[in-house]
């Protein structure tokens, strides 16, 4: 095609390489910030340590006092890392739901997965109902996980009906949220005073329930999910161009949507099952990643994970700092501090994304 004087020479490659370099730099910066945040998180608590002490305890646990080592490694480390893993899991889940449903409001919450988990947990907390018998220690997370997966499965089954569009799937999710919210209210109505407070505390979301075994389970799911999603990196990016365009490029949108829905349901439900409902990470994390890195999944996926992890890690710090001596449930912090920050970002961005 003819070239006009206004057009640039064929420098696309040069532009693209600099774009990639900039994004790698942003990812590296996010990672470094996350590491710092985790160190600060480890230093804070009823017994305060200096960052140098924390780093010493991390690098050579043998050289520090027993008290410091136990507090850093056995008490605070699972909580600090749980913040990272859960933040990354919820953010990835939100990012991929937004991708496959082409909806900026999609997240584990809007699809009712979190609400389902909450209902499952409440069944166990209020009435001691275990869906899988014999698992008393893990009754709450197992209930939460099963109901969350059932919710995802129900949404999927309904979405297989002919004529169901992605808008309908989002509507189905919202219907699920309302159903579970009413069921939850019903449980709370009948629950004893003591059970009621347990249910309410659980729904606030708290990292203090984190232990090493729970951390390992959550981390395993995250570590398996990331390569499964990354494998579809190009196809997932293409989904954002619409089904017709994705199909024209050889993607099978329905199958990809199903596979991704299963993976993200797993990610979201396992997180919610262990730490309760922590809001807005799944919504805010991906949006920030999108603003910083665009939607090429090779950057958007790790970016979403890092943003989510960073938000929750900072949230964990704030939950200890706001009222000295009290750890505010982190679910409250993420909504209270995260949302104004998010609005600030959205309203100040130069270009519109969605």
């Amino acid at each position, binding site marked *: 095609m003819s070239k006009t004087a206004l057009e*640039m020479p064929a420098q696309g*490659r040069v532009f693209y390489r600099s774009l990639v370099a900039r994004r790698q730099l942003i990812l590296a910066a996010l990672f470094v910030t996350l590491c710092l945040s985790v160190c600060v998180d480890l230093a804070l608590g009823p017994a305060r340590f200096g960052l140098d002490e924390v780093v010493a305890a991390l690098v050579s646990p043998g050289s520090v006092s027993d008290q410091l080592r136990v507090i850093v490694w056995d008490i605070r480390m699972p909580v600090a890392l749980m913040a990272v893993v859960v933040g990354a899991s919820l953010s990835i889940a939100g990012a991929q739901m937004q991708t496959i449903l082409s909806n900026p409001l999609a997240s584990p919450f809007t699809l009712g997965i979190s609400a389902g988990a909450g209902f499952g947990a409440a069944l166990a907390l209020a009435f001691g109902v275990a869906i899988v018998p014999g698992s008393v220690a893990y009754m709450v997370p197992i209930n939460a996980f099963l109901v969350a997966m059932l919710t995802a499965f129900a949404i999927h089954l309904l979405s297989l009906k002919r004529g169901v569009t992605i808008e309908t799937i989002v509507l189905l999710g919202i219907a699920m949220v309302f159903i579970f919210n009413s069921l939850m209210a019903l449980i709370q109505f009948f629950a004893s005073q003591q059970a009621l407070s347990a249910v309410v505390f659980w729904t606030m979301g708290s990292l203090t329930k984190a232990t090493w075994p729970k951390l390992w389970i959550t981390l395993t799911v995250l570590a398996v999910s990331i390569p499964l999603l990354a494998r579809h990196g190009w196809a997932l990016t293409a989904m954002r161009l619409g089904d017709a365009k994705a199909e*024209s*490029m050889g993607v099978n949108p329905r199958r990809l949507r199903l596979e991704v829905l299963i993976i993200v349901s797993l990610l979201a439900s396992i997180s919610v099952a262990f730490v309760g409902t922590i809001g807005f990470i799944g919504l805010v994390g991906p949006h920030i990643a999108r603003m910083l890195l665009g939607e090429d999944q090779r950057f958007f996926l790790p970016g979403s994970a890092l943003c989510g992890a960073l938000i929750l890690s900072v949230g964990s710090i704030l939950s200890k700092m706001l009222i000295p001596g009290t750890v505010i449930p982190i679910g409250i912090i993420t909504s209270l501090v995260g949302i104004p920050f998010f609005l600030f970002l959205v309203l100040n961005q130069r270009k519109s994304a969605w």
Partner: protein
Amino acid sequence: MVSLAFDGVGARYAKRAVLDDIHTPTFFGGQIVALLGPNAAGKSTLFRRVLGLVNGEGEVRLEGATAERPIAYMPQETRVDAVLTVYESVLLARMQGRRLKVSAADLEAVDRAIDELGIQALTARDIGDLSGGQRQLVSAAQALVQSPDVLLLDEPTSALDLHRQIALLSVLRRLATERGMLIVVALHDLGHALRFTDQAMVLADGTLKACGPTQAVVTPELLRDIYRVEGRIERCSRGQPLLVVDGAL
């Protein structure tokens, strides 16, 4: 050489038949085939049938293809809001089904497609910020970058200004001749069809009404029967066929 033929091809969405019993002679690489017909004739469905995106009777016979994914398809344009630059969106089309790592050859292919369509100035723009015509050129680049044997384009010129319409069709002409691509292009402008295409298929109500060399197919009778307009074909001073429409019937 790549070849494509339709043998009793039908297509259906659920129970509703959209295409019925399409038979054509064999089209060969190097040719441009115009897919003509009024709105809702089944043109897009025919493309989707070729790609295997809809089911139906009969057989679409593709032979002699060498590319890994032999058919590239440019669907009708829709607005998108993804946060991707034009360069990324073209690269994306090339990388489908490949590894995550982008090679120098991939970048070269993207640059070539972008060059071919003259959209170098758009490389760094977000696709959400483009005009309809610009999106159409990017979409064409997304199809080209796949280096296919067969290129299917669904109304690729509908949002372009006159200069870019002619330029795009000239690029297609050159690709067919130089690279031996077989190009099937849905067009509403019969004048463009006469000037730029070798063969024409005319669809109406899901059936094939005419098929053959474009100049033999696009006639006053076709204009009257299929398009319901009064018209004639003249020769312009350079000897090229010229469509003159006198009015709607």
